[in-house]
């Protein structure tokens, strides 16, 4: 089993945390994993891209050129990673900010998630990352929820601990959204 995920947004959209949590959770579940941040530049406010590879075998290159999953948080990111789309790629995009072109290939799986709106609804704009995380994990079914919540809790330390609940809620909303809209078999609640 191998899963290659590209997370792409701009700095501040929390893709870093998303990637780290994902990587940490699967590592604890005994998988091989690489998490590779590829910052645009030494420059502020740049785009933020992360490559996460999860595998049952040793991982060669941490750089992804053919993605199993693309998680896209803004338009420039889509432009950039469009060419990583192959047969059967799962494309999750934040439809609050991203407008996809019409000429996408047929053989990919598209998940349109209004993540910013959902996050805004629950009162925390930056939780859009966890909305996407919930949606993604619900579809791909990689991490038991308890494991994920454990990692989330330990990663939010100090003043940030207070943000646990809202992040958890955002994740649940993401799960909920794909279940409602994409007829997903929801079994990630089960523990290992």
């Amino acid at each position, binding site marked *: 089993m191998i899963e290659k995920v590209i997370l792409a947004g701009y700095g501040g959209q929390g893709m870093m945390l998303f990637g780290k949590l994902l990587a940490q959770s699967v590592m604890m579940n005994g998988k091989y994993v690489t998490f590779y941040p590829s910052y645009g530049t*030494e*420059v*502020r*406010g*740049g785009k933020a891209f992360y490559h996460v590879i999860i595998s049952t075998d040793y991982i060669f290159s941490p750089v992804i050129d053919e993605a199993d999953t693309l998680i896209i948080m803004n338009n420039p990111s889509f432009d950039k990673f469009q060419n990583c789309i192959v047969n059967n790629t799962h494309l999750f995009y934040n439809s609050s900010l991203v407008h996809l072109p019409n000429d996408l290939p047929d053989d990919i799986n598209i998940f349109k998630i209004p993540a910013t709106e959902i996050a805004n609804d629950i009162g925390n704009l930056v939780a859009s990352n966890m909305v996407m995380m919930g949606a993604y994990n619900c579809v791909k079914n990689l991490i038991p929820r308890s494991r994920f919540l454990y990692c989330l809790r330990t990663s939010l330390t100090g003043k940030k601990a207070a943000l646990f609940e809202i992040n958890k809620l955002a994740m649940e909303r993401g799960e909920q959204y794909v279940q409602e809209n994409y007829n997903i078999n929801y079994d990630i609640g089960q523990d290992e």
Partner: protein
Amino acid sequence: MEKIFTRPESLLDVPTHYCAGCGHGVVQRLIAEVIDSLGAREKTIGIAPVGCAVLAYNYFDFDMSEAPHGRPPAVATGIKRVHPENLVFAYQGDGDLAAIGIAEIIHTANRGENITVIFVNNAVYGMTNGQMAPTSIMNQKTITTPQGRTSSEGYPLKVCELLSVLDGSSFLARVSTSTPENIRLTKKTILKGFTTQIEKKGFALVEVLSACPVYLRMEPEESLKFIDNEMTKTFPLGVFKDWETNNS
């Protein structure tokens, strides 16, 4: 309708890469306004530092050079010697000027090099994600002083005070971007920094206390209060040397 405030001609109408609320944007606009007011756009040559302001050469609409980290004063010297009639200025951050580049700024000032330095003191390394700067104030938490700066990391370096000891410096002042009033004063002071050069009075440096909300881990508004309430205690505003009034 008359436009009474608009983007200066010397500042290109492009988005900057600065974080929201970053003081670099204000300082660079002020420089552009001053250059415009002097009608000097076509004879200005600026030097961008390595630091968050590294891409300043994309924002100003006049000749610009890069300089290795800390060396803008030396690069400015090399340019000014070739073009003594041009207006040459170096733009530097606190890491650039007061850490790695302290030798160059001291000797350039001491030589009385006829250039202008705009020194943006935001008390932190912005570009490299928030390490202590030589100008971080006592107890300031940064990523390399997680418990707050203590004396074992040394003391905040007061650049104007230090350079005022040198016989070669002609104009030294510290201003801030914390309020509209302070910003207007900053503009006047930057103007003076440039007229010092135009009148061939030698080395001028304007230190601007500026906010890096991201690495102060504050909302932008709060970061301006930090300047007024905290930074100015260590770095009092004022003119430290002025060839015109012989104030030193």
